[in-house]
């Protein structure tokens, strides 16, 4: 896994989610404690802190080359991350490994691709990854959210699941359908897997439908 650090904008804010969480655990105590959440100013540039996750919300968003994941990312930024100004966002893109690229030869044979082909595959992959990730980072930048990017290799479901654990994420953001868009399916296989197996809360963002009133036709 290699990290492309792109710190776009610093976001100063004092509102920490930790104070709210602690207050709620003592709900039987003064309600005033919980309701008054003054911008404590204790936050500041906490986005760079990778450990803890106790004071800031760490959001991981999975993106791929399709549009839906970007839309999911922007929805999540607008509706969820906005409420937590100290949140840090990591944009994750998962790719299959390019190394063992084999192709069938004649009727019964398999041949390992010559090194040059593997190299060019790798380059194309890196190029794709970079493009996907930079689009996502742009979306974050437009909303003045500090974001980092990571590209992970392997089977997307498991790789993202692992990444979420490694990063101690507080929230995982997914689109509901991915590259293998099947019209009838309301939930893609990666999103489905992650909804059950991720070790943190999962937000599955669905495309808006002319707000739901009577648009009965299934997509």
């Amino acid at each position, binding site marked *: 896994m290699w990290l492309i650090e792109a710190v776009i904008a610093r976001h100063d804010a004092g509102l920490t989610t930790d104070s*709210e969480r602690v207050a709620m655990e003592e*709900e039987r105590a003064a309600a005033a404690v919980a309701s008054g959440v003054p911008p404590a100013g204790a936050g500041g540039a906490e986005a760079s802190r990778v450990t803890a996750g106790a004071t800031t919300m760490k959001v991981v968003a999975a993106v791929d080359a399709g549009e839906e994941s970007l839309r999911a990312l922007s929805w999540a930024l607008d509706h969820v991350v906005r409420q*937590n100004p100290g949140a840090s966002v990591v944009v994750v893109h998962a790719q299959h490994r390019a190394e063992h690229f084999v192709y069938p030869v004649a009727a019964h044979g398999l041949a390992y691709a010559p090194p040059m082909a593997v190299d060019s595959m790798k380059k194309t992959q890196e190029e794709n990854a970079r493009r996907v990730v930079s689009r996502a980072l742009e979306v974050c930048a437009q909303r003045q959210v500090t974001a980092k990017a990571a590209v992970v290799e392997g089977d997307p479901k498991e790789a993202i699941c692992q990444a979420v654990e490694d990063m101690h994420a507080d929230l995982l953001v997914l689109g509901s359908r991915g590259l293998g868009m099947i019209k009838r399916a309301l939930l893609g296989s990666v999103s489905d897997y992650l*909804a059950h197996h991720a070790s943190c809360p999962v937000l*599955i963002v*669905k495309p808006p439908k002319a707000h739901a009133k009577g648009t009965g036709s299934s997509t």
Partner: protein
Amino acid sequence: MAETNAAPAPAAAAAEEEDCSSRKMVVVVGVDDSDHSYSALEWAVRHVAAAADAELVVVHGKPSASSVVTFGSPGAGDVVRFVEADLRKRAEDVVDKARRLCIANSVHGLIEVIEDEPRYVLCNAVEKHGADLLVVGSHGYGAIKRAFLGSVSDYCTHHALCSVMIVKQNKPKK
């Protein structure tokens, strides 16, 4: 299915439907008497409290006695009465807990109890209130249990019309 509106909090402002982007965000939370759904409620309350321009709707799907007791055994009539009373008490407890949590966080929420299967209750509530976000807990069942016991969060993730937030108990961080 009987529908009982339990204690809509004052000034809960039935959804103001303006179609421009200044429309309030509506968050529906599904609760039952389990811990994980309580965490989901906490998350939603925290989020709504922070947002300050969002509405919270707490929905509880109360199981009916007939779904729990099978008829055909002698004395079934009496059992139903007890079961019904117990279920009603549990539903009240759930509502009570939810209301206390809302009050403690100064969040005005509408609390509804509807007698039907939770999965349908939640998806219908999403449609009825024009929700933007549905928050549910996750019991963390494995695949086999899910297949047999059914999973509300699974159903909602697939069928709800809006974005779905599945809140899990965070595994202890190392």
